[in-house]
């Protein structure tokens, strides 16, 4: 396999979080495509039961089973590997867990009927979370024939930033409730995978105040918990203005040189008079203001001193082609 410098060599579990509306699932999908380059096999997993992966990849709703959904990003040297998807839900994970560890398949469905999951979700979300993170840990550890890992990487479309610390800190969440016992032992073994250097948490954000704040809070939370590693910051939906900085500044201040703009438009054959010039100037001014506000937010992110990646805003909405473009951007920038 071609050795290639990436920022996350040795990482097997990529946990992707982000505030709602930042494109977390899309980015997780693009990261899976990027990681599946060079013939690698990747599992893309979602845990919130919203069928986000199916929507992003434009396939029918996915079951609790590992299904091949796409071919990874290809290059001239080598075709991409396979991207598999898994929609993990706590009920199925519980049934599987009982079967795997206790040989109790029927008990699982009986418990589900009795509302055990309702119970676990309600009274002790840690118990539910450990089943989901446990599934990811199992996929990371799973070996195929010849002792080679079945998946080179697992990408988890995780809960949003506000809940990520709690979600990943399973061992301690569970230990508050269960000091001893089998579930505690299971939680500890899951925690060993999540707290190892094999696991990082990437934060998806857009350059607005709330998402950036949540990102910084999330990073601080992970660091305070100890053992959990913040990965990269993925800035999504960037729309840079292709202008020299001094012009962006002038535009933001409302001092865009309209005569110059008019001259340029004229040479493009758009001689529509002063109304169009003024209207376009207003659009540039708004965007320049946005850019100035975004620069402030980018500065705050830079202070976190984590690798940071920029994904372009894709006009017309994200389809599969757009997803591969994002994957290529992640790979070019060394995220995969």
């Amino acid at each position, binding site marked *: 396999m071609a050795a290639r410098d990436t920022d996350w060599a040795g990482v097997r579990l990529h946990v992707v979080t982000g505030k709602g509306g930042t494109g977390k699932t899309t980015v997780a999908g693009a990261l899976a495509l990027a990681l599946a380059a060079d013939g690698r096999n990747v599992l893309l997993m979602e845990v919130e039961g919203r069928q986000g992966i199916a929507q992003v990849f434009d396939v029918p709703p996915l079951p609790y089973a590992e299904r091949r959904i796409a071919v990874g990003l290809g290059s001239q040297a080598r075709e991409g590997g396979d991207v598999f998807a898994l929609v993990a839900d706590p009920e199925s994970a519980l049934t599987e867990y009982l079967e795997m560890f206790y040989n109790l398949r029927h008990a699982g469905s*009986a418990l589900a009927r009795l509302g055990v999951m309702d119970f676990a979700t309600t009274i002790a979300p840690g118990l539910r979370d450990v089943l989901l993170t446990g599934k990811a840990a199992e996929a990371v550890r799973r070996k195929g024939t010849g002792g080679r890992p079945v998946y080179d990487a697992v990408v988890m479309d995780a809960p949003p930033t506000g809940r990520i610390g709690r979600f990943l800190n399973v061992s301690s969440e569970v230990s508050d409730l269960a000091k001893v016992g*089998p579930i505690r032992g299971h939680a500890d073994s899951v925690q060993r995978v999540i707290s190892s250097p094999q696991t990082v948490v990437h934060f998806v954000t857009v350059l607005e105040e709330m998402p950036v704040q949540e990102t910084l809070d999330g990073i601080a939370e992970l660091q305070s918990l100890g053992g959990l590693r913040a990965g990269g910051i993925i800035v999504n939906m960037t729309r840079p203005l*292709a202008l020299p900085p001094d012009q962006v500044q002038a535009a933001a201040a409302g001092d865009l040189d309209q005569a110059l703009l008019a*001259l340029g438009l004229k*040479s493009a*054959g758009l001689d529509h008079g002063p109304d169009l010039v003024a209207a376009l100037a207003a659009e*540039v001014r708004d965007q320049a203001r946005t850019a100035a506000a975004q620069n402030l937010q980018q500065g705050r992110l830079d202070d976190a001193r984590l690798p940071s990646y920029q994904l372009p805003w894709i*006009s017309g909405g994200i389809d599969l082609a757009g997803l591969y473009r994002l994957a290529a951007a992640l790979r070019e920038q060394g995220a995969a």
Partner: protein
Amino acid sequence: MTTRRPPHLDVDRLIDDRRTRIIVCCGAGGVGKTTAAAAIGLRAAERGRHVVVLTVDPARRLAQSMGLTKLDNTPRIVPGLRFDARNATEGNGADSAGSLHAMMLDMKRTFDEIVEQHADPDRAAQILANPFYQSLSSSFAGTQEYMAMEKLGQLRRADEWDLIVVDTPPSRSALDFLDAPQRLSRFLDGRLLRLLTAPAKVGGRAYLRVLNAGFGVVTGVLTKILGTQVLRDVQTFVSALDTMFGGFRERAEYTYQLLRAPGTAFLVVAAPEDDALREASYFVERLDTERMPLAGLILNRVERLPAAKLSAARSLAAAEVLQSAGPDGGPAGRAGAEDTPESAARVLAAAALRLHADRMELAAVQRRAAEHFTAAHPLVPVAEIPAQPEDVHDLDGLRIIGQAFGPGPQSAGN
């Protein structure tokens, strides 16, 4: 192609109507609910209402601008309101200046207070100290929603304000806050919990005795997964809460009725994107099923382009012409390579045209998403808030948002 335009949502008429006592802003996370709720509250107050805005998770600077610095469950007065004669003379019946209070919800404290209110001191202390209560009150996915509704009920009973604007929690799904109260009381009342409590009650009830045969199997499995100690903690917790079940159910029922009462209006907030509007659709249908009064849809962050008459295709084509042609029709040098005014003009115009084309495409995507919604719900009135170049973080910013709440007709825009 002609597409049906939805009826215009006149938020001003809603907030000017003194019979409107509660406005609930709901919608998927990340669509600007908090900002919309704050803007509605401010506008209503400046039009003469005495308003309290209940927010759950505001952006820091927005919270600061409203005088909120911490979660403390106390409504704080928001200074800096402006009352101009125009607001008061538009026949909205404003006889005096209004006022605005805002508060941030502290869900754990709200929950603790309910416990303290419904249980004797010893039992309350026992509940508050139980690890399961702590988990339930701080991290149960529905607790925030439940407590927001509880707080709404408290504010309504206090009757100090004539309009309450509620910003619902940033749930995974817009429906969570409607379901949470019932889910929580159903849970506390649930079969499994009854089963778990049974051994704690000497003798048990008749129906539990019937269940006892199956009970052994279930506890057996649960013990296997959880261990006996966990099971014991749960049993202690549940039997301690037992005395409060009635109270919980009553409160959930009260809130539910409050949401259906005349004087309550729901505003669904959405961004003009497929995901958010799909959530909005579910919500609209759900409100209908529950016979809860929907006032309309607020579409936030709508692209409004001053140069909308120039199509994306023409704009892009012109940008390409500029970037492929040098001064004499020859190939252009790299950006910055030439320093003539002509080349500077071309760079500027090309950037402006590309930006315009991008935003026109975004506007088209947004319009299609909005049209899908209106095709499914043609009668739901819609108000559009234009996208703002920067985050809203002061009262002036909220006032600009509030301009979208006028009577319309809105300009055709794009």
